[in-house]
Each structure stands twice: as structure tokens, then as C-alpha cells.
């Protein structure tokens, strides 16, 4: 049976979501606290794996570097193994955004694309998120500048991350959606976090995978893309620059479409959803490789098989008309 890649990806996202969010029901189902994906810790006891960002922040804040090295090793090992497909095939928050996107499509609403200039300006936001994640906990160590805000700024990024507010809802846990009045800092952080969450709920309904261009986890995984085993490769000679890969890309990446020299076109923003490969109409122009071996390739046949999967009614009638007329002409000769 031939599976379409987008169906496969939906299945993978659903399974990963179910496991990561509800896996705790199964005894001893624990995948580790060093996962390179937004499997939020605030889902609490039903989760089967942790987003590593929380632990990085705790480690930095407590200056407790005992277990840091082995965990970081596992973290980077997982990143190298699957690369950016953690974002496109596994991330539970990505699943939520894809659900909202499917809802948008059901409503037959179009989507928004940002201009290049706007995208360039928005690119710095994920670096700011990374900064908040790494530097603020360091400043909260005992004796440093922000140490009196330790309690409230102990996991600063997690208080801004929309995944923290949204994924626990699937477990009927509504009290993350609350403003914490414990102190001024916590009020600020939770209000900001809620505002960001609201913004991203709206954004995911009008732009595909809205959060992914601001996500620091995506940034970290994206920075390692040269070393990861899963890559996107292009045959620049077979490419006709038709721009279909740019149209279908949820992250609106144009570098894959424009590249004319290099063969490795895994972009920092790319979530390896492989829609570009699925919709590319030229044979072998785009392919996904794992350890150098091609696992999925663009094909002309595949493209047109999908386009023709529902032939129009008029075609069948025309076939009869044409055969009749051509046989008529033979007689006329």
C-alpha cells in the first residue's frame, strides 16, 4: 500500500503526541528528560518525556552541573539522530498547531505569508527566547543580580512558552491558564506568557506553524542541522525553479527553491515535514537522506498521480467523442 508522506507524518505526530502526553498512564513509560522537543513538563504525571529546556534552566539556576554532561550528550545524540524531524514529526505542540491548521483548512480560510523583510525582522525573536532561556537562570544563581527573583524567574522561558499553557489542557488541567500573583516578577511573566499564548493561538489559525519561527528549541536543533543524519538534499540541475516547494512550505522557506549550487539545502527553519519533496514535480530534484542514503525522493509520477486521483467528469466524455471522431476521419480518408 502506498502511503503519502503527509499521512505518515500525521500518524507519527498523533502517536508521538499520545505517547508523550498520556504515556504516563502506562507504568514505567519514560522516554527521558532530555528530549529535543516541546513535550511540556507541566503536563505532569501523565507525560512520558520532558522537554529538555526546563532542565537546562533548572541546572543553570541551581548551578548543579553533576548530571549535565550525560544529559547533554543524550540530548545532542537525539538531535543528531533525527535532526529537525523532531519538530515536524514528533513535537506535541507542533501537533496542536497542525490541528489548528487543519481546522483553518476545514473552514476554507486562506493563510497569511510574511514578506521577506518582515521575516528577517522577526528572526531575532527566537534568539531573544534563547537568551532568556540561558542567561536569565544564570543571573538567578545565588549571589547574582536577579537572585532575589529566583523563585519567580527560575524557569523564565517556560513561563513564556505557549506550550506550557496549552498542552496541559489535554489533560483537563486548567490551572496553568492562571496569572500568578506571588510577586511582581511572576505577574509579569505569567501575563506575558498568557498574552503570547493568546497571540499564538490566533497566529496558528492564520499562519502555518506560527510558533516554529520563534521557538528556541527549533533554533537549537536547527543550528545542529549540518551534523544531523537526516538531511534535505537537492539536485540543482533537475530543478526547474518552479517555486512549488516555496508555496507548500509551512515555514515559507525560499532557499530550497532558489539554491543553485549546493546540494544540502536543510534550512535552519525547516521542520523536515517533507511537503516540498512530496509536491516537487521533477524527478530526483529533492530528496530526504538519512546517513547519506535516500529515503524519500520527489517524483513526477507521484505528483501527477496525486493531481489525477480524481479525474474530471468531462474527460471521460471527451474520450468517447475523440475516438468517434478519429474513426470517422479514417473513413473519410
Amino acid at each position, binding site marked *: 500500500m502506498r502511503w503519502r508522506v503527509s499521512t505518515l507524518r500525521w500518524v507519527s505526530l498523533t502517536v508521538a503526541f499520545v505517547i508523550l502526553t498520556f504515556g504516563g498512564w502506562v507504568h514505567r513509560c519514560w522516554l527521558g528528560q532530555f528530549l529535543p522537543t516541546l513535550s511540556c513538563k507541566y503536563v505532569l504525571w501523565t507525560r512520558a518525556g520532558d522537554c529538555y529546556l526546563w532542565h537546562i534552566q533548572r541546572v543553570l539556576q541551581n548551578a548543579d552541573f553533576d548530571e549535565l554532561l550525560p544529559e547533554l550528550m543524550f540530548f545532542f545524540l537525539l538531535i543528531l539522530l533525527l535532526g529537525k524531524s523532531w519538530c515536524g514529526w514528533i513535537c506535541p505542540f507542533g501537533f496542536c498547531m497542525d490541528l489548528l491548521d487543519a481546522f483553518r483548512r476545514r473552514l476554507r480560510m486562506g493563510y497569511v505569508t510574511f514578506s521577506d523583510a518582515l521575516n528577517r525582522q522577526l528572526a531575532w525573536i527566537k534568539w531573544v527566547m534563547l537568551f532568556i532561556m540561558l542567561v536569565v537562570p544564570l543571573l538567578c544563581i545565588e549571589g547574582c543580580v536577579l537572585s532575589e527573583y529566583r523563585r519567580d524567574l527560575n524557569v523564565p522561558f517556560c513561563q513564556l512558552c505557549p506550550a506550557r499553557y496549552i498542552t496541559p489542557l489535554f489533560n483537563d488541567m486548567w490551572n496553568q491558564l492562571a496569572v500568578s500573583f506571588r510577586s511582581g516578577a511572576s505577574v509579569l511573566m505569567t501575563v506575558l506568557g498568557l498574552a503570547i499564548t493568546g497571540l499564538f493561538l490566533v497566529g496558528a489559525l492564520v499562519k502555518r506553524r506560527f510558533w516554529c519561527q520563534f521557538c528556541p528549541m527549533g533554533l537549537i536543533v536547527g543550528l545542529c542541522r549540518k551534523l544531523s543524519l537526516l538531511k534535505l538534499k537537492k539536485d540543482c540541475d533537475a530543478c526547474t*525553479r518552479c517555486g512549488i516547494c516555496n508555496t507548500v512550505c509551512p515555514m515559507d522557506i525560499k532557499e530550497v527553491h532558489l539554491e543553485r549550487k549546493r546540494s544540502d539545502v536543510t534550512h535552519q527553519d525547516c521542520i523536515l515535514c517533507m511537503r516540498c519533496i512530496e509536491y516537487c514535480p521533477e524527478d530526483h530534484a529533492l530528496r530526504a537522506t538519512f546517513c547519506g542514503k535516500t529515503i524519500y525522493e520527489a517524483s513526477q509520477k507521484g505528483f501527477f498521480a496525486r493531481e489525477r486521483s480524481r479525474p474530471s467528469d468531462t474527460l471521460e466524455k471527451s474520450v468517447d467523442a475523440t475516438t468517434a471522431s478519429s474513426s470517422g476521419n479514417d473513413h473519410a480518408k
Partner: protein
Amino acid sequence: MPNELVEEQKKRKARFGWALEQVTRRLLDDLSVEDHIPKRMDYFLNILRQAFVPSAAGEGPKTELYPGRKVIGTYCVMTPEELIYAAGAVPVRLCGGSHEAAAAGDEFVPRDICPVVRSAVGATAFDLLPIYRRCDAVVVPTTCDSKRKLGELLADFTKVWMLEVPHIKEAERSRLQWLEQIYAIKNSLEKLTGKKIGSKELRSATRRIAQAQYQARRLHTLRKADMPVVFGKHAMLAMNAYAFAEVDEWTAAMTAFNDEIEGRLMAGQRAGHTQAPRLLLAGSPAIFPNWKLPQLIEEMGGVIVADESCVADRYLYDPVGTTEGTMTEMMRALAARLIMPCTCPSFSPNEDRLYRLRYLVKEFKISGVIYHVLKGCLIYDFEVGRVEKLMKELSVPVLRVETDYNPEDIEQLRTRIEAFVEMTRVRAKSER
């Protein structure tokens, strides 16, 4: 206008019309009795006959083409035919190929400009072919100088919509403006036909054209085979016939045509003799009935296995790729497909064309390139140097052939082409 002048005009029109009809009829008849013409060519020849030789249909000139529907004339490959079909109208490609019409058009335009435009003007002004006047509106993209002035000229005779194609498609603002143009033409079509183009209609039209594109690609792939089984003059003619046919009928006929070609491939029925060199016809498009170059080349022993003509191979090559059926994405995808992969030299820069040529040479195992330049076609002539340099790198010989629609230079061309074909044949043989 005084009566004598009117009579004079009528006589001239009749003269041109009669000449055009005779030439095309003879051409079509010659083609249809050639050996090794696929049986399924009948449909395409018929279509061309109906367009150019209306009296040959048997019942007399067709008074009403496409009754009850709007007909939109198009020039260039950048017009959105998907939108036209979605509005329930019929697109007809009006790029002219007739020498007689070009001669008629000399009255209105300078003699040195592109014969495509001259022919189009002549056919429209003198009503030489019924389809030209039947158009309810004509879409003229602003690709080259000639087309831009053509649009202004045609406004005297018919309703003209000029589509401003960006010349620099790398710039984002140009592409955004192009998208707005596509929306504008969609609105104009809706107003003209009185039919709303919703996402469902557009999706259905895109699908119908995708079927046609699939068959075109099939033909493209079949011509890649090591053994050529169909002559370029026949394959290109089948593609050219799309200009005057409706998409569904054409697709059905093309399916049958491709099936026959495949059958030939299986059975090993070669077209041309065993040592015929594989040639690429590049440059300005050869538009029916200006069929002298394809016929000449293949008469002299070559086989045209590939071309980059915008009325042949490039006509239906680029598909629309969308993931969802929303209007936003489909319009965006449509706008992209019309200009982004287009290698017409009216775009600057036009690096993509060199990549395409290289791809064609490699995939089709081309041993020689015939670069056709129409007299007055500045943009194709401009790129000859570049193409020659590329072909030198690929060690493929290039022959630049400058001609127009006049049949008087056939003999000179014959000599040159014969020499070139022979040269490439020998080269190919020695390389093997």
C-alpha cells in the same frame, strides 16, 4: 470611407485569406500522408484544420465557434488559463505563425519586427481567421517590446487586457505585484463571463489542465528514449494543437497518442534512420503553420527529440502545486507557476534557461543544437552567445538559423542544415 477603398480592402482580405487557406491546407494534407505519422495525429490535424481551413470541415465556414461561451484570446505562455477555464470560458492561443497573415500585417507594424506579432495583427485586422475576431477579450502579457505595442494596436479591434509580467522576477515586490495582477484578471474574467470563480471552480480547472500537463510530460519522457520513435515535427504539432483545442478533448487525444508512441517503443519502430543525430530545436518558437524548420531538419536526416518552444514542450510543462483547496494558496501557486519556471528570455536575468538547456542536453543525449532566431526577435538573439558558450562546455555543436515566415529561404537553409546534420551525425558516431 469611400466605396472603392472598402472594395479594395475586401479584395485584399479575400486574397490573403485564400492564400492562407491554401497554404495551410496543403501543409496539413502533406503532413497527414507522411509515413511514420502516428495514427492518432488525426485529431490534432483536425483541430488545426478547423482553425485555419474552416471550409474544409465540410459544412461551410463555421459561423459560431464555441456558441454560448466566452472566448479569451491569449498571447504568451504566462496567461492563466486555469482562471479562464474556471470562469467557463475558452482560452485560445493567438500567437501567429502564418506568412500570409504576416504579410497582411505589414500595413500596421514595421516590417522588421517579430513575425509572430505581424501575423497576429494581420489576422486580427483583416479577419483572416474567424477565431481572432471571435475572441471576447484578448490577454496580452507585456513580455517583449513587440507584444507591448501589439496590445495597444489590437485595442482598435478587440478588448485588450494587458498583463504586466514582471521582468525581474527575483524581486519580491515584482512577484507581489504579479499576484495582484492575477487577482485583477480574475475579477475581470468574472465580470466578463458573469460567473464567479470560486475555489471549487479553480480547483477543478487546475485539475483538468493538470491532466493535460501529465500527458504533455508523458510525451516529453517518451521522447527521451534512446530510440526515437516519433518525429519532432509530429510531436511539436500535437502540442501546438493545444492552442486551438479545449483541454479535455485534447487530453483524451493526447492520451491515445502517447499510448501509440509507447506501443511503438515496445515494438521498436524507430523514427528516422539508425544513425540519425538527436537534435534540440532551441530559440524562437516555430508556430504552425511556420513549420518549415522542423520539416527541413527531419527531412535532412536529423530527429528533433527535444525543444524549448513555448508552443511545444514548454507550453504545458509547469504544473500548479497546492496542498489545500483554498483560494489564497491556489492563486499564489498559480501566480508562481506562470512566471517562476518560465525560461522565456523576456526575463532578466535568465540563468534558468541555461540550466534547462543543460538538463535537456544531458537527459535527451543531444548531439546538436539548432538555434532558431526569428528576424526581429531581439531577446532570443541576445542569448545566442550565452547558449553557444554553454554548448561549447558540453561539447555540443550549435547552428544559428535566422529566418522568418517567408518560404523563399528554404533552399539556403536546406544546405546549411544538411551540412550541420551530417556533421553532428559523424561526430556522434565517432564519439560512440
